[in-house]
């Protein structure tokens, strides 16, 4: 795995192309440029290893969530929000074959020359256009034709097309006030539209459900919906009034993702692994890659543990001291003390930074997608600190060697 610098004289044009042609509408976060000046190149061997790991993790995760859906008593320790827990019993009709299951596992190289994963983005992973279009934009400026990438967007849209009726209507459910949500949906919508689908960009409360089927109530776009792609996180969904969101849990309309995704989305998922294994489930790949995870109360006198929020996203509220801004670390510890069940303690792994041609160290988070059990491409971010959060920069991933799909 290595970093290749984008030639300085080509970077400005590259950045502009990424913004306009690769749906990167948020190129700046506070004082940080979020479009990396490098390309991440992984070897064929690394790709094959990651692909294998991703698919193994996916088998284990999906088996676990299907088991939990039928045995909800095991999910109690996940300490999901009450409103959400109440709805889980309505998912009994969940049929994996009817829906599209999308996940992204976040890998990190460690100083022991191994991989560690920090989480699975099980519910609403993002980075679609960055994973699909940025690699080609980068290839256009670095002149390394031998490198290739897996087009995540093609894989996801083909999976959706297999499960949604031909020329059907797909609602792309997102927070319509957030342009960074819309950019993800717009990329997907433009692709699906070209495939013949009718696309509706709308918010979670623009869906109504009758007889377990989804209907749009969006002004000027009313009618039956044949597919749902949801980018509004489940824990946000349940705060939406009126409560039309209940229908998401037992709908038979093909969904990506179905709310069954919540079991692995909570970072407290590892806290029930012992119980799951006693019931015959295998979690060997998870055990190999995820650092030891325990309850907050059990980490009191233990060295080397960090706190993570159960429902955290993009690295927020993780207690890596040197990555926190002024006062943030103390604020997190205070919140952990107040709400221990909303957090977990995890053994900190030692991220191995990559060194750029300019001699700068960058930590890497390499997200590896799976779609319906198959590896589906990469979305990566780099950061000068070990915590990869919103200040990190998006970096395209290219693969060396022959194509191994």
């Amino acid at each position: 795995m290595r970093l290749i610098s984008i030639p300085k004289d080509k970077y400005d044009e590259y950045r502009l192309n990424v913004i306009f042609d690769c749906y990167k509408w948020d190129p700046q976060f506070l004082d940080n440029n979020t479009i990396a000046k490098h390309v991440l190149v992984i070897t064929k061997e690394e790709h094959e290893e990651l692909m294998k790991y991703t698919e193994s993790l996916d088998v284990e995760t999906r088996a676990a969530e299907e088991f939990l859906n039928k045995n909800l008593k095991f999910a109690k320790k996940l300490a999901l929000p009450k409103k959400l827990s109440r709805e889980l019993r309505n998912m009994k009709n969940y049929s994996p074959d009817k829906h599209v299951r999308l996940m992204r596992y976040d890998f990190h190289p460690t100083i022991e020359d191994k991989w560690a994963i920090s989480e699975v983005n099980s519910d609403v992973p993002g980075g679609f256009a960055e994973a699909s279009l940025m690699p080609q934009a980068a290839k256009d400026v670095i002149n390394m034709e031998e490198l290739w990438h897996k087009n995540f967007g093609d894989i996801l849209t083909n999976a959706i097309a297999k499960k949604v009726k031909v020329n059907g209507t797909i609602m792309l459910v997102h927070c319509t006030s957030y342009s960074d949500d819309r950019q993800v949906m717009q990329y997907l919508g433009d692709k699906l539209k070209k495939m013949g689908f009718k696309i509706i960009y709308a918010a979670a409360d623009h869906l109504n459900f009758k007889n377990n089927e989804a209907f749009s109530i969006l002004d000027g776009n009313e009618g039956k919906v044949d597919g749902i792609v949801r980018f509004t996180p489940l824990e946000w969904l349940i705060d939406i009034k009126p409560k039309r969101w209940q229908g998401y849990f037992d709908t038979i309309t093909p969904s990506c993702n179905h709310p069954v995704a919540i079991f692995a989305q909570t970072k407290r998922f590892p806290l029930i692994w012992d119980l799951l294994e006693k019931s015959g489930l295998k979690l060997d790949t998870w055990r190999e890659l995820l650092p030891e995870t325990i309850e907050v109360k059990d980490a009191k006198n233990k060295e080397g543990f960090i706190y993570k929020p159960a429902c955290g996203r993009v690295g927020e509220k993780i207690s890596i001291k040197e990555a926190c801004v002024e006062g943030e670390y103390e604020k997190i510890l205070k919140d952990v003390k107040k709400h221990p069940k909303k957090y977990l303690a995890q053994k900190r792994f030692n991220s191995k930074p990559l060194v750029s041609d300019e001699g700068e160290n960058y930590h890497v988070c390499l997200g590896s997608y799976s779609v319906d059990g198959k590896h589906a491409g990469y979305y990566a971010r780099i950061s000068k600190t070990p915590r990869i959060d919103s200040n990190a920069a998006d970096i395209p991933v290219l693969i060396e060697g022959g194509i191994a799909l």
Partner: protein
Amino acid sequence: MINKDIFKIWAPVDAKWVDWVRPVPFISIDDELKTYESFNFVIPNVNYIEEKSVDTAWFVDLPSYDSVAEGLALASKFGFRPIPIYNGTNEQQGAMANVNNQTIEVALVWGAYVLLKLKLEKDALPVFLLDSNRMNRYKMSPSVFDNSWDIYHQDIPSAEYFLNNGIKKIVVRGKEKIEKDLSKIFYGFQKKGIKFFFTDGYSEPKEVVIKKPKRDDD
């Protein structure tokens, strides 16, 4: 010109502060560009300042295209660099929406031609442009497409960046008051030593103290 060209006029690569120009309204400009070019807004007279101060950045927070026009007035008269930070998206085709973000696109195309005629310094002081209609949350029915939006701390430079670049004061040119979302950000800036001023466009900017945001504003 295509949308990228319009963006480059507003955000020339070698100019200061332009990293914060939000691309969102520029993205969907393309198809209707020819129509946009025929619009002609008026640059207003600016009488509430006599000269710019080198330690002061400005935020213009006015409804819709008025904010673009006012920003260009400050650019024309005092040499400020207008930094559009509009972040609202367009509604689903056919749906009623609570904010008209398209007019901003039209104004930005028109404004690009105005900017082309100006010779702004590379390190010109910034005037950030915002649409004060952005927080129009009123929905007459649940079927309305909500494309209202807020400005967040991550959308503008940090207090440290302002201070490190010699900015000790921020003037907000608004309608009546500093809006809620800006106040939330600016309260933190104030704690770090930045002073705030407000003008409604009729009188000179007056110093204001930003109140601590209420809990339910979080």
